[in-house]
């Protein structure tokens, strides 16, 4: 079953008939799972299938309701709260787990600080952090604080932290969800290196090409059940997708309906200067889906935040349906029908300790009044609508949002934005952490919105998504627009060339002229 010709090394870590229930809600049913040294074992499945729960059990963070975990062939009770690190089991969780106020170097060495006597060896740690970050090709100063970093940088720090530990088993829950192509590539290099060193690697991903590229074996979960564990060579991306969702998936992307040539421009941005944005100009037409591609930190999010009033404009002009606007804050932009969905769902998108309903209606609470008071029934109806429309799966609707699976949190966030019924929708990483089945649904929703005459900006690090959805693609690089692609120009290699700065667009010359 190892899926390779070589004699299989003995199993390091295994789950034996593991079941798990939260309260009365079962989420895993009698799962068998194992991993060998030097092997990459992927876990895939729909949102809420129980993938994260399984790895939490494998790392001691959750205790199985029945069944047990075996380490080196012997049953073990893993210590709770991440102390399994001491047994060589290192985990990168789905959501970032960094202390916001520590520096990068502090974070990387957290819990195993270099010391001489009682004192910290600050210089050595800083140097060590710098070296580790260099192997990952990320240029982050070890002295900056975590809270100043973007989500992608934070994720790279998580990866740096994990690979620098002496891991026997490295478990990663959607490590690449927030990364773009370039970072993902260096991440792959590191995985290959660790694999060669004999580290056992478990990883969860919704990106099936990634699974095909990295994994030796794939385990598919659906609704808490083990569907199959198969060697990757026996699989195609289509067959995996089918196993995951239990039905055939055709046409991930809906057909594109080009907007009318003479459709009016609903949003025009001219020479925009803002933090992280340098001289950006573009126009968005009614019914258009405009993609924004580029590397992490290329300023795509900064453009969006400047437009909706989340960061101050230094100069430039924004025309909303022909009239110049400057939204002072989000309430103004939402009132004008311009809504923005953040990519940082834990930090900026959702209140993790509140329930689904409170989160859904937070942006649009004004719509749920009966006289001066909140109308609970109308809020509940809104939740029911959103649950149906976005297929939000919470086995218990009264749970706190922090207890939803990652993908379902994402769907809730989409629902929250759509509650505002915007005409201009700016979505930052629309399908981060969402399974293929739901992805298809969301793509169709986006396309349908555009067909209705809404205009949509899709910022995405998933190149395929931008290519599959957008009518035109803006490629950004270092805060500027490197090029705007249309029609047949929209290909992976073209986007890459602009994003990496190999090619400069005529568009750009015109702007800087």
């Amino acid at each position, binding site marked *: 079953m190892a899926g390779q010709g070589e004699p299989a090394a003995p199993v390091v870590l295994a789950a034996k008939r593991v079941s798990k229930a*939260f*309260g*009365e*809600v*079962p989420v895993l*049913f*009698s799962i068998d799972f194992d991993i060998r040294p030097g092997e990459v074992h992927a876990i895939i499945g729909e949102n809420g299938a129980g993938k*994260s729960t399984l790895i939490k059990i494998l790392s001691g*963070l959750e205790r199985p309701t029945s069944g047990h975990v075996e380490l080196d062939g012997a049953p073990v009770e893993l210590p709770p*709260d991440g102390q399994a690190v001491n047994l060589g089991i290192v985990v990168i*969780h*789905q*959501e970032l*787990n960094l202390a916001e106020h520590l520096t990068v170097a502090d974070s990387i060495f957290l819990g195993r600080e270099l010391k001489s006597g009682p004192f910290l060896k600050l210089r050595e740690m800083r140097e060590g952090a710098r070296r580790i970050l260099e192997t990952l090709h990320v240029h982050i100063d070890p002295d900056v604080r975590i809270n100043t970093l973007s989500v992608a940088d934070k994720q790279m720090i998580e990866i740096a932290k994990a690979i620098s530990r002496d891991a026997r088993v490295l478990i990663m829950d959607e490590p690449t969800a927030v990364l773009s192509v370039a970072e993902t590539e260096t991440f792959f290099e590191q995985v290959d290196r660790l694999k060669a060193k004999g580290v056992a690697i478990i990883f969860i991903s919704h990106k099936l090409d990634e699974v095909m590229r990295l994994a030796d074996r794939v385990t598919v979960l659906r*609704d*808490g*059940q*083990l569907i199959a564990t198969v060697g990757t060579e026996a699989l195609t991306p289509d067959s995996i997708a089918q196993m995951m969702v239990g039905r055939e998936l055709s046409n991930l992307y809906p057909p594109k309906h080009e907007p009318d040539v003479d459709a009016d421009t609903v949003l025009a941005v001219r020479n925009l200067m803002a933090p992280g944005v340098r001289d950006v100009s573009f126009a968005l037409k009614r019914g258009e889906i405009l993609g924004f591609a580029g590397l992490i930190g290329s300023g795509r999010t900064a453009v969006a935040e400047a437009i909706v009033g*989340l960061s101050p404009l230094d100069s430039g002009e924004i025309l909303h349906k022909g009239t110049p606007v400057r939204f002072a*804050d*989000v*309430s103004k*932009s*939402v009132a004008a029908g311009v809504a*923005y969905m*953040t990519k*940082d769902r*834990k*930090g*900026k*998108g*959702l*209140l*993790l*300790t*509140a329930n689904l309903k*409170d989160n859904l209606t*937070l*942006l649009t*609470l*004004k719509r749920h*009044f009966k006289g*001066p*008071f*909140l109308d609970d029934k109308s809020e509940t109806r809104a939740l029911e609508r959103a649950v149906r429309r976005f297929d939000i*799966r*919470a*086995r*218990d*609707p*009264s749970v*706190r949002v*922090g*207890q939803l*699976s*990652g993908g379902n*949190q994402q769907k809730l966030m989409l629902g*929250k934005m759509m509650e505002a019924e915007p005409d201009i929708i700016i979505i930052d990483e629309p399908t981060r952490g969402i399974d293929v089945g739901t992805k298809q649904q969301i793509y169709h929703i986006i396309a349908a919105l555009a067909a209705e005459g809404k205009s949509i900006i899709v910022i995405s690090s998933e190149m395929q998504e931008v290519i599959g959805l957008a009518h035109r693609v803006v490629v950004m690089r270092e805060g500027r627009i490197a090029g705007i692609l249309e029609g047949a120009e929209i290909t992976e290699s073209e986007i890459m060339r602009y994003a990496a700065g190999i090619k400069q667009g005529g568009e750009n010359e015109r702007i800087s002229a």
Partner: protein
Amino acid sequence: MSVSAPEAAASPSKGFRLDLKTAGPLLALILLVALGYALNPLFLAEGNVTNILTRSAFIGIIAVGATFVITAGGIDLSVGSMAAFIAGVMIIVMNWAVESMGVSIWTVLMGIGCSLILGIGAGFINGFLTTKAKIEAFIVTLGTMGIYRSLVTYFADGGTLSLASGAREIYRPVYYDSFLRIPYPVWVFIVVAIIGWVLMNRTAFGRYCMAIGSNEHVARYSAIKVDRVKTWTYILQGLCVSLATIIYVPRLGSASAATGVLWELEAIAAVIIGGTMLKGGFGRVGGTVIGALILTAIGNILNLTEIISNYLNGAVQGVIIVAAVYLQRGSLSARRKKAAE
């Protein structure tokens, strides 16, 4: 492996812990009442019950305001000195009115008006400095606390400001009289508590306070005017202090540097005992009311019995506060562990 996953199973019972958490402070109060009655049956005599309720009104009203400030992630340390300051100015204004216009109901109304203006103004200053000048609430209110306290000492010239006896006669009923056998201060407390509860649980304002306290970023990204809502919590707090002062002044008819000392801590304690989280994001006005009653009841029981010296009042209150927070922490960390995705 033939078990099928129950999709969207009917929501199971709300979870025992949550219920216990909501009911916790109430249970504690009931236990305390039972204990008080067992130690001395006089505890439940009508006069004593009225007495407890009246006394808890000051702290209770202030604590209802503090519930909003704390839920939105802030803190207000200035309420005790603010009360003393307002009381001092009220007395000065009323005495001046008595001198220049003679005694009439207008004297008292002027005092009350002056109290409301000062309370709202002081709250606005706290709110403005925390939101617009971006100074931490703890620092801002530590500063204003010192300022108000020293101002009242200065006005009283180190001694006591006393209300002119004519005005005192007219004003007295506000504290000492009753309606339907319930003293006016208790009525004010009830009304403030009901309005506070509705505001917290049934209006957008309360929801926004919780959102801001639990994650200010999320609030900002959700079109909430964070600064405005936070400022309003401090204004509301100032208003509550002003109301508490209005019913407090006729009790003694005087104000001095010792007025309202440590009220801020008692108010915060009442809020915390009631189940509101000090770090914000979760507020319970009902709990706060119970918290205020618990604090007053403890003092009262110690007065009525000989077992523990009355001088140990603070110690007993301290133990109760720490225990209450410990219990909250316990259920919270269990939840946080589960929530860790």
